[in-house]
């Protein structure tokens, strides 16, 4: 006697089970999560160690640790964002993805689960890095509100990159494609006010920084760690983060459509 279950009765338990599985995979595969955290932590300590002494020469307000922590958080979020794509590619390469999509589950659920798990991993890494920053003297002049801006802007933009990496994984079906998507971050992170304020940049670098959305994101996040709020910096930073998220959503949507055409290629 066979019994057929009505398909798609409720996708929420399915999403929950898939998120739990993705998180378990992250815990059991430390190489997926340790790299971005260690790299960002290393940069934080080195940047602070080398440039904090010279900062009074180019910073008009705030401390160098408050200036550099936003960059390090974004580095962690963007390099850690690869995890979404890496989780999907693991399943595609092992052909487990084909087994999963043979169940009556919405295709988007399989993309949402690694995204949520990736976000949880990134959020954990941000908390650890902020704690390392505090050990190096990071203060929070705006209290919880400033910390909220710092975390939420990083997570919104990080989700955008997470979805970009996911799209690269869905389309390219290999780790190389995911890693290439992550490399997009590096030119963006250096063609901006990386180590000095935008006002100190000159020539083509100043022009590049003006067009780089990370510039506005960094300025808003730095504002959240420096006494005195700037509404316009927060607004521009929010728009930049939302823009990166929108690009990520569009890419993931395209990736899902491409992948959905033929699963078992």
């Amino acid at each position, binding site marked *: 006697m066979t019994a057929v279950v009505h398909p*798609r009765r409720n996708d929420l338990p399915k999403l929950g089970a898939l998120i739990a599985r993705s998180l378990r995979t992250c815990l059991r595969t430390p190489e997926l999560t340790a790299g971005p955290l260690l790299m960002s932590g290393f940069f934080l300590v080195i940047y602070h160690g080398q440039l904090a002494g010279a900062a009074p020469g180019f910073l008009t307000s705030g401390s160098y640790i408050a200036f550099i922590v936003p960059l390090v958080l974004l580095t962690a979020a963007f390099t850690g964002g690869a995890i979404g794509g890496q989780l999907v590619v693991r399943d595609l390469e092992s052909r487990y993805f084909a087994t999963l999509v043979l*169940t009556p589950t919405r295709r988007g659920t399989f993309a949402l689960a690694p995204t949520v798990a990736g976000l949880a991993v990134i959020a954990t890494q941000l908390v650890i890095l902020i704690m390392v920053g505090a050990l190096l003297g990071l203060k929070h002049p705006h209290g919880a509100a400033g910390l909220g801006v710092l975390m939420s802007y990083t997570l919104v933009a990080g989700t955008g990159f997470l979805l970009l990496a996911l799209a690269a994984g869905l389309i390219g079906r290999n780790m190389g494609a995911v890693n290439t998507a992550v490399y997009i971050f590096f030119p963006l992170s250096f063609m901006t006010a990386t180590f000095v304020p935008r006002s100190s940049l000159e020539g083509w670098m100043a022009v590049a920084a003006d067009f780089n959305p990370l510039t506005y994101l960094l300025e808003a996040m730095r504002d959240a760690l420096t006494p005195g709020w700037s509404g316009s910096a927060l607004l521009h930073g929010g728009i930049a983060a939302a823009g990166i998220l929108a690009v990520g959503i569009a890419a993931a949507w395209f990736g899902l459509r491409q992948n959905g055409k033929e699963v*078992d290629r």
Partner: protein
Amino acid sequence: MDTPAVFTSQLTKLYGDTVALDQLDLSVSRGAVHCLLGPNGSGKTTTVAILTTLRTPTGGTAQVDGIDVVSQPDQVRARCGVTLQHTGVDQQMTGREVLRLQAVLQGLGRTARSRRVDNLVELLDLSGHIDTRISGWSGGLRRRLDLAAALVHRPSILFLDEPTTGLDPASRRTLWDEIERLNREEGTTVFLTTQYLEEAERLAETVSILRAGRLIITSSPNRLKHGLGERRMVLRFAHAEHTGAAAQLLGGSVDMEGDQPILRVPVDAGDEPRCLADLAHAGCDVVAFTVVEPSLEDVFLRLTAEPLEEPA
């Protein structure tokens, strides 16, 4: 009339200019074990991939349990259990985690899920390994887990794409026993592809032979063997020169077995005494003979070696 478990009409699949499936017409009754045979690249896996909704056809229609695979893929997925040619598992998971996740994705409730997983673990004899990570499992165990995952939601039809490829003989027989039990006791329709003719002969009530994406024939293994296979006498003579004389008398082909010539003669059942009498009358001294029954392998080789007819 009962809706067939699997039905295809003019099913066609193109990959660029390559024709993977060419107007395939198939009908498999409910409760049957049907086997799709064919050489590599004949379209077996493509057929399974379309029927299980992994691929979309270029033309024609395909239905599972009367449901169109293109327009209602979720309904089809809820009715199918599938094991793919290359076992797809996450090696970081334990066997129980795989089965539980599969049960959730198939929509089973918490209680039913737990009961069903325990039931499958016992049924497929996985209890000794189920809570360990799959990375340490043998190929045979993984195949059994794959089968258990395909059965979690008690599907009405089970698609098995080359399920025993790469397994040792003992694991292969265990899997065959399980497939037979599922079909016999639970009435599950089984749609199987294989390259092992022994597997098809043991399990299938009907077989379809594909070649270059085209269906050559569908029949029962017995009918195929007796309709298209060749029953042969293999004769050995006291003197080598008698072999040629016997071949002139009875026809057939002369082969060497070691350094001894032998004669293979096609015969119908019951013809052996007449042949032996004819040979004795002609002075050909037979020292030994055996009768070789037709095999599915003969039929398969014959059908897949014949030139393809161009469609009208």
